[in-house]
């Protein structure tokens, strides 16, 4: 067993979560706003109307301000895998590194190269080529999301690989399985489309502010038309991809689904909790009710999880302690098998070092029987396999509640804009004003659901976070955490200040 300081694990987790969540403030806006800029510029190219060019350049300015801090907060994430999660880097680098390298090769260079044309090429290249460059920046941004989510999807559902006991690491066996991992596909479609919603909401917020103030009214209405169409289509698609993502979670990460729903006792014909207040004293295995208050939609969870109304959905207790009747193996059993696997792996390494081939072969044969449970051997208690239920449940429900509002909001704005009365709807404009903030909350809540729900695993079922860390001192990580917090916050203050100033200046300066 590996002796790890729990406070080091927590601080390493906190640092990665902090840097990733900071990064995730800006990235969704970039993913969607790049396409909105491309839409606006394409209209300009088709109509030749200079007003659309001014609109394009205005939103491009805000895109650039946001993009810069997104890049600044992004570079650290790739390297943190090495600096703070070096055991992880070694054990899965053979698989995980490839998508990151491909992301750099295909996405970042596309983005970076065409970015210069997009911002400084107005008088240096033709109109058509400029518009093409804007599209390339949008495609490059979203391609980068493809590859990072392939990597992330693999952490949630490790496929296309095998453990090599000689090198003590996981090695890739099938690249196509890694790329077309169903979790990765659903993650990409859900995440990128939610980015489109975020950017559309961002445009809506700023445009509504102009309409409330009676400034730049024509530009605001034009911006809203395109953003509402994009936002409406994207938010409906988010619902569809969210359903698909939840289905994949149910199949591959049932503990995460149980935490998302606060489901402790599995049942057939399980319902979805539409809203509820969790009992925060509830622990796995006790007899308390999990909720103080709840409103359920009957049968819906079984349908979502298994595409079958009466099917069984395992709860946290079933997964931790097992449910023989429903053929669910508990974490307690998996831990026993995992520990046997780790013992046999150590015996294999020892026999290899002693050049005792027959003992090595025997140990390897025993290891192969239990190797898929290897990660469970690192857990100290079965309950350790349960993620923080309250945080995951509340984040998931916040995301889902906000997500279901967006199609209505975008639909209303589209309807009244096409009717030509949007600026007269004084009740609607404040809603639009806050839509950006609501979308930001939904984004962060979605990230928390996905990544906190994965805990305690770095690689689902194979590698707990606690053995993935670099053996640093806790103080070192506390210092770098403080440095990141200070620098990122100073940059965020500047970003918000610049953004507000540019919004105050408006499109007239373009």
């Amino acid at each position, binding site marked *: 067993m590996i002796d790890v300081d729990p406070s080091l694990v927590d601080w390493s987790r906190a640092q990665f979560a902090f840097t990733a969540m900071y990064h995730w403030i800006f990235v969704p806006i970039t993913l969607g706003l790049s396409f909105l800029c491309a839409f606006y510029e394409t209209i300009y190219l088709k109509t030749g109307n200079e007003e659309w060019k001014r609109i394009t350049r205005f939103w491009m300015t805000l895109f650039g301000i946001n993009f810069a801090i997104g890049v600044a907060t992004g570079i650290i994430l790739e390297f943190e895998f090495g600096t703070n999660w070096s055991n992880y880097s*070694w054990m899965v680098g053979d698989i995980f590194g490839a998508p990151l390298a491909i992301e750099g090769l295909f996405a*970042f260079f596309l983005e970076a190269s065409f970015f210069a044309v997009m911002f400084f090429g107005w008088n240096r290249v033709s109109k058509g080529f400029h518009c093409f460059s804007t599209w390339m920046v949008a495609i490059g941004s979203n391609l980068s999301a493809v590859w990072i989510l392939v990597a992330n999807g693999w952490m949630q559902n490790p496929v296309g690989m095998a453990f090599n006991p000689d090198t003590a690491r996981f090695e890739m066996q099938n690249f196509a399985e890694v790329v077309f991992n169903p979790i990765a596909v659903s993650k990409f479609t859900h995440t990128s489309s939610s980015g489109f919603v975020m950017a559309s909401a961002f445009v809506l917020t700023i445009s509504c502010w102009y309409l409330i103030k009676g400034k730049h009214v024509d530009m605001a209405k034009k911006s809203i038309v395109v953003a509402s169409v994009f936002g409406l289509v994207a938010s409906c698609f988010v619902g569809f991809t969210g359903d698909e993502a939840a289905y994949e979670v149910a199949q591959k990460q049932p503990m995460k689904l149980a935490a998302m729903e606060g489901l402790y006792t599995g049942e057939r014909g399980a319902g979805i909790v539409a809203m509820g207040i969790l009992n925060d004293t509830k622990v796995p295995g006790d007899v308390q009710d999990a909720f103080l208050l709840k409103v359920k939609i009957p049968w819906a969870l079984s349908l979502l999880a298994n595409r079958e109304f009466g099917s069984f959905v395992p709860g946290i207790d079933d997964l931790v302690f097992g449910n023989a009747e429903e053929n669910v193996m508990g974490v307690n059993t998996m831990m026993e098998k995992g520990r046997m696997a780790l013992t046999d792996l150590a015996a294999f390494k020892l026999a290899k070092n002693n050049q005792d081939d027959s003992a090595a072969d025997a140990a390897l044969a025993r290891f192969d029987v239990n190797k898929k449970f290897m990660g469970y051997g690192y857990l100290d208690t079965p309950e350790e396999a349960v993620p923080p239920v309250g945080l995951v449940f509340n984040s998931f429900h916040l995301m889902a509640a906000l997500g279901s509002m967006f199609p209505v909001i975008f639909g209303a704005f589209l309807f009244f804009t096409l009717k030509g009365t949007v600026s007269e709807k004084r009740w609607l404009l404040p809603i639009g004003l806050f839509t950006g903030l609501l979308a930001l909350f939904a984004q962060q809540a979605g990230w928390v659901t996905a990544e906190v729900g994965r805990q305690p695993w770095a690689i689902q079922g194979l590698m707990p976070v606690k053995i993935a860390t670099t053996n640093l001192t806790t103080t070192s990580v506390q210092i770098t955490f403080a440095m990141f917090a200070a620098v990122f916050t100073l*940059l965020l203050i*500047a970003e918000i200040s610049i953004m507000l*100033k540019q919004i105050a200046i408006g499109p007239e300066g373009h």
Partner: protein
Amino acid sequence: MISNFDYVTLQQLWWVICSIVGALFLFLTFVQGGQTLLWQVAKTDTESAFVVNSLGRKWELPFTTLVLFGGALFASFPKFYSTSFGGAYWVWILILFTFIIQAVSYEYRKKAANVWGAKTYELFLFINGSVGVLLIGAAVGTFYTGSAFSLNDMNQVTWQYTLGGINLRGLEAAFSLFNLSLGLFLVFNARVLGALYLLNNLDLPAVPDMEERLRKALWSSFICSLPFLLYVVVSILLRKGFGVDENGVVSMVSFKYLFNLFALPHLLLFLLGGLALVIWGVLLGAKKGSNRGIWPAGLGTVLVGLCVLCLPAFNGTAFYPSSFDLQSSLTIYNASSSRYTLMVMTYVALFIPVLLAYIIYLWQQMDSKKITAEDALDHEAY
């Protein structure tokens, strides 16, 4: 064809690919070098605007290349990635901080309400160009001087260097004269490249005084780089190296890198040819009044970079040696990804020429016209 490559060929190929990316990064540090020249050569707001807007159109290239370099190493040599980044924690964290602050500086420097003032962002650019490049040089220097780490049976790294009971996690690299010299050489070389790039990219008649200062800065930076270059080259030729025998046993070998140069004469050619090209570029810019020195100097830097990165990796040499436990040293054969992963990555790498082609095309499109006052002073300029 690629599927027929044996494991050793793929391992060697990937070290060469990573070295090419690293060498291209060294060329692209003309952006960083140019940043350190800003306060020296630009004496008016207009001149500053010329420098910043010229560099600002390229800043993402070295940044993205660094990210690609990290990604390529992660994918192809994950044991190096985990050992070096996890072990020499503070060096890499500090390098990354200098790039974090660079990323916002161009965009925010002249924007209204930027809170911290233009000078702060210019200071960020200076720190990135000086401290960032210096630390990268020091980190590369450890390929020759070694680092104090050990690996256990599961290949988990423990960093062993302590000073007064404090584990410096890589900062001790700065205590080596060789590492510092390599870092300082790269800083001055980046300044040389930065000056040459600006001479090539700016509409010089619009800033005649700055042209003169650029040529002076080019020459003085080159002169400053020479003692460090000389020390690095002589030290490489004379120092003991980390040799690996056919059984994978690592031992110290006298004149190892000198022998490597003889055994790998193309690297010797890269080194000598590269240095000659850099000198030619400098002379073109500093003494001949030409604006085209960036091309020979840039190519020369790539060739020297290739030599510096390949020399400690081939001909039975450990590229990331451990001075604490020789047998923990990393070679391209014990640190690489599996054959399958390297093969997949090689197929992916076939697209690199396409990538280079469109970057060069875009670069030509954007640079066909020099940076003029109209570009530099536009209200949306950097």
